[in-house]
């Protein structure tokens, strides 16, 4: 069917987006899978003639946010149990994954989610500001200020010469 065929053609880009959001390649592909499944269930909501890629990026981004929030909630539960130990942001996993990510991946992982998604859409995926703002459903002014702050942080992490 054309819908599946078009999604299949998008998959390489979607995997790239997923990996720029997620913490490692395996998480990226899990995210990709969750997004495809959600898209197949929601296929009736896609309007033929509109851009499938923007629609799909939005779904993937929402999947990622849902998962990140679920992870935060789990983290908070553990904090409550081990109050005072300061194990909030699963620093251990973060260190492990940092080893395989390289400098760029490490710098991306340090960004707040709201900056990372903007950086991923504009600088990695090459969307125009307006397109990225529509995918994220945020005003364009918000997009540019997040993009600017995210870039500043990345330049600091990577060194100005990056």
């Amino acid at each position, binding site marked *: 069917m054309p819908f599946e065929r078009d999604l299949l053609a998008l998959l390489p880009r979607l995997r790239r987006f997923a990996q720029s959001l997620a913490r490692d390649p395996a998480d990226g592909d899990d995210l990709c899978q969750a997004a*495809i*499944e959600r898209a197949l269930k929601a296929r009736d909501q896609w309007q033929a003639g509109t851009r499938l890629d923007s629609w799909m990026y*939005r779904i993937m981004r929402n999947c990622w946010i849902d998962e990140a929030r679920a992870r935060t909630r*789990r983290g908070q539960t553990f904090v409550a149990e081990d109050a005072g130990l300061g194990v909030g942001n699963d620093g251990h996993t973060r260190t492990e994954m940092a080893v395989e990510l390289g400098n*760029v991946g490490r710098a991306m992982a340090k960004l707040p989610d709201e900056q990372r998604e903007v*950086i991923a859409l504009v600088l*990695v995926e090459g969307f125009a*500001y307006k397109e990225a703002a529509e995918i994220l459903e945020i005003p364009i002014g*918000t997009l540019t200020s997040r993009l600017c702050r995210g870039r500043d942080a990345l330049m600091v992490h990577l060194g*100005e010469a990056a």
Partner: protein
Amino acid sequence: MTIDPEMLMAYADGELDPLSAKRVEKAMAADPALAERVAAHRALRATLAGHFAPVAEQPVPARLAALLDDAVVPIRAAPARRRNWLSAGNLAAMAATLVIGLLAGRMLEPAGPVASRQGSLVAQGSLAQALDTQLASAPPTGAATRIGLTFRDPAGALCRTFEDRALSGIACRAAGEWTLRRTTSGDAAQGAYRQAGSAETMEAAQAMMAGDPLDAAAERAARDGGWR
């Protein structure tokens, strides 16, 4: 003539109209630091794009392609595989679910989400509850109402965009209640991934907004401070 950092960035990204671009180029000619900054922006883009480019060159893993294979009934495969994605930390997730269940239980009540008070519409019941307690940065799973942006209007009142199946719009805090400033009726049939999204609401929010929307920390602080 001053060129602010966002304008310089937009220039580096080719996002400026020709007139503004000319202004930036003039400023760059006079100030080498600006030209360096533009070069740094472009170098960063090249670094990031280059780092992730190989992912798009790799063959797609079979398990992903199989989801889109016409021979497979994809809906079937979905429930079993989903667990994969959400498997870690099940115990904590169950604890979290319990809390959410309790919250959701409290949201069930017979009255509708909106009341009329002295000529203006105010949120009540589940909608008021969502506006009072939900954080866009941490919504309860399965919440009926989605909270989008939180921002201050020019008078300093906190406003929040919301969306549920029946109603979406913008509510602002006044006299301890959420006054509905702008509403559109939701469309249950279209669901969360409408192509148009909540674009109209976002546009209206942007027009009402003084400064930037609150970030996650500020949103939490505003809630803990009683939305004053």
